[in-house]
C-alpha cells in the first residue's frame, strides 16, 4: 500500500518537474528608460537574470548594470558573444556592460557556462 502511494507521489513529482521546467512560463521583460544621456537597465543576477529580456531603443547609448547576488560560480561571468564581452561579475558588486545599439536585432547573453540566458532586443 505504502509503495503504491510512493509510486503515485513519484509520478506526480515527475509531472510537476516536467510542467515547471518545460512548460511555457512568462519571462520577466523590462523596457529601458530612455533619457537624454542614454538608457540603462539594472539586472539582478540571482538564479538567473531579472529581467531576462531587455528592450532597448536603437541608436541610444545603453548600459546594462549587472548585480550578482547569487553565490553560484555558474553565474560569475556574463558573456555577450555578439559584442565580445566576457565580464566577470564579483558578488554583490554592480558591473556595467555597454551595449552597441547601432544595429536593431536580438542579442543573447549567457553565463560563463552557457546555462543561463538572457536577451537584449534593440528596436
Amino acid at each position, binding site marked *: 500500500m505504502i509503495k503504491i502511494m510512493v509510486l503515485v507521489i513519484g*509520478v506526480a513529482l*515527475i509531472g510537476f518537474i516536467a510542467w515547471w521546467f518545460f512548460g511555457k512560463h512568462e519571462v520577466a521583460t523590462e523596457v529601458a528608460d530612455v533619457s537624454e544621456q542614454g538608457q540603462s537597465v539594472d539586472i539582478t543576477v540571482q*538564479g*538567473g537574470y531579472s529581467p531576462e529580456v531587455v528592450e532597448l531603443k536603437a541608436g541610444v547609448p545603453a548600459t546594462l548594470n549587472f548585480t550578482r547576488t547569487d553565490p*553560484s560560480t555558474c553565474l560569475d561571468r556574463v558573456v555577450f558573444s555578439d559584442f*565580445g564581452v566576457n565580464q566577470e561579475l564579483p558578488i554583490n558588486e554592480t558591473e556595467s556592460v555597454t551595449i552597441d545599439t547601432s544595429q536593431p536585432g536580438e542579442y543573447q547573453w549567457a553565463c560563463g557556462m552557457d546555462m543561463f540566458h538572457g536577451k537584449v532586443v534593440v528596436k
Partner: protein
Amino acid sequence: MSVTKRFWVALILSIPMLLNMVLMPFHVMVLSNEWLQFGLTTVIMVVAAGPFIQSAWASFLKHHSNMDTLVAIGTVTAYVYSIYAMLTDQAIFFESAAFVITFVLLGQVLEERMRNNASSAVEKLVDLQAKDAEVVRDGQVLRVPLEDVRAGDLVRVKPGEKIAVDGTITDGGSTVDESMVTGESMPVTKKVGDKVIGATINGNGTLTFQADKVGADTLLAQIVEMVKKAQTSHAPIQKLTDKVSNIFVPVVAILAIVTFLVWYVFLDASVANSLIFAVSVVVIACPCALGLATPTALMVGTGRAAKMGILIKNGEVLELVNEVKTVVFDKTGTITIGKPVVTDIVGDENHVLQIAASLEAASEHPLATAITQRSRENQVTVSAVDHFQAVKGKGVTATVAGESAFVGNAKLISNNQMTDELRQRMTQLQREAKTVVVVGLNEQVIGLIAIQDAPKATSKVAIEALHARGLKTVMLTGDNEQVAQAVANQVGIDQVVADVLPGDKADAVKQLQASGKVAFVGDGINDAPALTQADVGIAMGSGTDIAIESGGIVLVKNDLRDVDRALALSQKTFSRIKLNLFWAFVYNVLGIPVAAGLFYAVGLSLSPELAGLAMAFSSLSVVTSSVLLNKTKISPKNQFA
C-alpha cells in the same frame, strides 16, 4: 564566503568522517557518535552547501535549473533522510552529503583557477601597452600618459623603451622587437619612413616617430578587440550542447526519481539503498563539462594563435577550416614580394643601367621604380635627358648626352635592331616569367633588363607544408598564363588561374568552390570580395596596414608559412573541442546508468561520494584538456623546416 574558504571548511569538517570510513574495516571507530556526525554535517550544509541551495532555489523560482540544483537536491536528500534515519535508528549516511560537498567544491576551486588561466590571453595582450610616452610639443619634450598621446604627435623613443602607439618614423633608426604583436621572433630593422607598431620594444637606437593611430585605432587595440570577440564566440558544434543543457537538469531529476521508484517499488530495495542510487544519479550528472567543453578550448586556441600573430575571428571559422580542401592564393604580394625587382641585366651592366635609369628617372611606373632602385644600389650616376617622349604602351625615348636612347618593351623596336644572341636571351628570360625591358642607344639595342616580382623566400616552404596536409593549392592572378605558370613552378603551386581581372577574383573562387570548401589567401586590401566569397578568408598584412575586418583569419606578419600554422592551430583547437565534447557526453551517458545501479547485478555501482568525486573531476578534466592546448606542438606536417 569564497569558494576556496567554503572548500576548506567542508574539508576540515569531513576529515573525521573520512577517517571513520577508512578505519571502519579495522573496527576502529573515531566517530561512534551519530550526533557528532550530524553536527559536523550540519555545519557543512549551512556554511559550504548553503550557497548551492540558495542558488538552486532562486533559479527554481524562475523555472531554471543548473548544476547547483543537482548538488543541492542530492545533498539535501542525503542529509534530510539521514536525520530521519538517525531518529528512527536506521543506517545513516551523513558522510555522503559531506563528501559530495567537499569534492564538488574542490572541483570548483581547481576549475576556477584553470578558467582564469584559459582566459588570461587578452589581459596579457592589454598589458603589453606602454604606460606613457615622451612627446615633443612646442619644442618641449614631455612625458605624458598613453591616453594623452594624440594622432600627429611626435613621439621620442629611447633605446629599450616601448613604442607607445602606431606611427611612422620621422627621425633616427633602430631595430625593433615586434614579437609580442606579430609573432616575428627576429628584430626588424627600421629607418625613416618605416611604420612602427605600438607596444613593440625599441632596440638600441633612438627613434622619433609621428603618431598615426592612437587609442582604439592601434593595431594592438584592434587585435585585443578581435581576440575578445573570438573568445566569446560560438562554434556551430555548440548548438547540440545548447539544446542538451537546457533540458539536462530536469531530465536528470526525473531520472533520479525513476531510479528511486524502480528500486523501491519494483525491486523491493530498502528506502536507504534506493535513495543512495537516486542521490548518486543526481550527483554524478554534470552539465558543466558539456557547457565548458567548447568555450574553454576556443579561448585557449584563439589566445595562443594571437600570440603567434594569427587572429582567428570566431568559432565558426575555426570549424570551417577543417573542411577546407583547396587553398587559393592571390599572386601579387601574397606569394610574391609584391614589388618588381631587377633580376638580370644583359650587356654592360652599368652602362645599360645608366641609360635606363636616366630615362626612367622621372617615371612612377613600377618597372621604372625597380630600375631606379637597382641603379641606386649599383651607385650608377643618372644623366640629364632631353627630348623626353613617352610612347604609349611601348616605352620612352629621349636623348642622353647627345645620343638618342630608348627604353621599353619589344614593341618599341624593329627586328633588325637586336642581335640574335640578345633575342635568344630575351626569350629565355621571358620563359622564366620575367618582364624584359630593352635598352637601346643610337637605334641599336645594347642590353636587356629583366624584372620580376619574385616569390618570397618562404613561399615554397609554405606551399609544401600545405601539400603535406593534403590540400590543393591554386594561384589566382591577373598576369598572363606564361608568367603565372613560371612563378607557380618556382613555388610548387598545383593549379594556375591566369588572366583574372581584379573584379573577377570572387567569381574564380566561386568556381573553385564547386569542388569543396575553399580558403582564399590575399592581402586584405584589394582582395576583399574574394576573401568574403571564400569559405575561409585569410587576410595577410604587414605592420599597421592590416585590414583586420577583412578576413576570417588575419595573419599579422607577412609570412606565408603562417597559413599552414593557422590551419594547424585551428584543426588542433577544433579536434580538442570534439574530444572535450566526446568525453563530456560519454561521461554523462556512462556515469548516469552506473550511478542508477543498472550494473548492480554485475557488481558495478557508485556511492554518492564517488559520484561527487567523478563529477568534480569531469568538468576539471575538460578545462584542463583545453588549457593543455597551450602546450601542444604546432609544426608543419613535413619536418624539413
